[in-house]
């Protein structure tokens, strides 16, 4: 490794402290969770250590299949909308000046950081009967009576798009802003129109990044916990809600842990796919 300096700036022992902290407080909780997922459920509320597949066997129920189908389809819809709207947004954003970019990024970050509970509250106010768009439509004469649009599947997907959109833009932002502007310039000089350059040059060049962003937004919205409760009906509850419900209100930690392990495997597989998709871009 000739590009390395003669001596590294950080001594080797420096790695011990973060390694110890992350092993104790990140790996250990996962290990315990894995162990609990195969433990025996104790009806008194907790669990007895043991080894059985009972909690995993409950996955084979119609109920669980429904929960999975709802979680996946709701998140897929939200991720598709976010990337569809977010990609052109990011392309236009990255062509702006430094100050304009900074201001828009501040807005996006502020929205992204907002607690789900605040987003759920804001959206349910916006979609409510007394303060929301129902009023506006009534005032415009579109509907005879002001009405509420929440709780509903529409409200839930709108909420997931609201949290997913800034995330999609921030995931797309680095690859989009690194795309060589000369590439587009060349396409324009050769006579390609604006839309033609967009679909013929920008999109093919960033295909991997777009697929990667889609998967990451999908995983991100899959983790939403409060929005399904605030904006959806109980049949729209996602896996995240059921995990918490089992752990806290049904006191079934083994089943909650098993669902969590399952969700983690799904998420890890998807994140792996996303990074593969991102790498393909580099090879192209």
């Amino acid at each position, binding site marked *: 490794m000739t590009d390395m300096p003669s001596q590294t700036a950080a001594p080797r022992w420096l790695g011990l402290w*973060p390694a110890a902290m992350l092993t104790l407080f990140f790996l250990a909780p996962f290990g315990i969770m894995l162990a609990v997922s195969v433990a025996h459920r104790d009806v008194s509320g907790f669990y007895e250590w043991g080894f059985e597949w009972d909690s995993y066997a409950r996955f084979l129920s119609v109920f669980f299949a429904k929960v999975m189908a709802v979680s996946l389809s709701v998140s897929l819809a939200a991720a598709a909308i976010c990337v569809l709207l977010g990609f052109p947004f990011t392309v236009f954003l990255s062509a702006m000046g430094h100050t304009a970019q900074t201001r828009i990024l501040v807005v996006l970050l502020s929205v992204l950081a907002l607690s789900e509970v605040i987003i759920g509250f804001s959206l349910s106010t916006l979609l409510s009967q007394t303060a929301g768009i129902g009023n506006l439509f009534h005032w415009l004469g579109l509907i005879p009576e002001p009405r509420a649009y929440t709780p509903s599947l529409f409200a839930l997907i709108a909420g997931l798009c609201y949290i997913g959109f800034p995330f999609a833009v921030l995931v797309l932002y680095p690859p989009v802003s690194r795309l060589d502007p000369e590439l587009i310039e060349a396409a324009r000089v050769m006579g390609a129109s604006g839309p033609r350059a967009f679909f013929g040059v920008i999109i093919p060049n960033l295909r991997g990044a777009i697929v990667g962003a889609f998967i990451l937004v999908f995983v991100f919205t899959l983790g939403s916990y409060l929005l399904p409760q605030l904006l959806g009906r109980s049949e729209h509850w996602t896996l995240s809600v059921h995990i918490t419900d089992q752990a806290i209100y049904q006191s079934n930690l083994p089943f909650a842990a098993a669902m969590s392990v399952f969700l983690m495997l799904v998420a890890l597989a998807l994140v792996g796919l996303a990074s593969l998709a991102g790498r393909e871009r580099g090879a192209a």
Partner: protein
Amino acid sequence: MTRTLKTTYVLIILALLLAPLVVVAAVSLNGPQTLRFPPVEPSSRWYGELFRQSEWLVPLRNSLVIAACAAALSVVIALPLALYVWQRRGVAAKALTGMGLAPFALPPVISALGFMIFWMTLGGYGQIYATIISHGVFLVTLPLVTISLGLKGIDPLLIEAARVMGGGRWVVFRTVILPLLIPYMVSGYAFAFVLSLNEYIIAYMVAGFTVETLPIKIFNALRYGYTPILAVVSVIFAGLSALIFGLIGRFGNLPRLLGAERITRD
């Protein structure tokens, strides 16, 4: 597409993102205990109310203490991690980076359940320190990313020069590396602070019944009906996030922090 059309598109989306917040800000000005838009008998009464009611002041204090300590902890873990991984390529470096990035790549409910079972087993369940440590570990990713970005920008020749002039590791770190890293540490701290302030599920599952944070308090209050005070808290939170990110944008290079390489300050 022309420039005007592009700008319009961007502005329409920004307007959609801001619409719920504008409605909430307006609703927070209602005089009576109702959520009407446009507000009736506008007054700022609920803003004063928030700081008089201890049922809101305690969660507010909890949230601030947790966010301040957790963000500090995440920087304290991320800084040595970033320094260790920088200039190293072994298995250990890869594993450490992976562990530092993993909490953020997974749906948070997974980490939340992991932390909950962990603290139940160890006996910190329901304690404020459990929330602080859980948040600190969960948010390590943010300062790790910003500090690594800062290290990437340091010219190796600068360090080589300092070393040739006789500086030992500690001296080089203190006089060359650290001053260059401070802006990145500050923004990493700020990112972690804001996210901890707004985090719900981990705080709820680790100590939700004893240590109420503001998001937990809001969610609990929602069950008993919507009052303007919820709108007030939302406005303050949104304003605080905007202020912190605005400061980073004002004094740092936000586009570069978020991964743009081509951009220079104008």
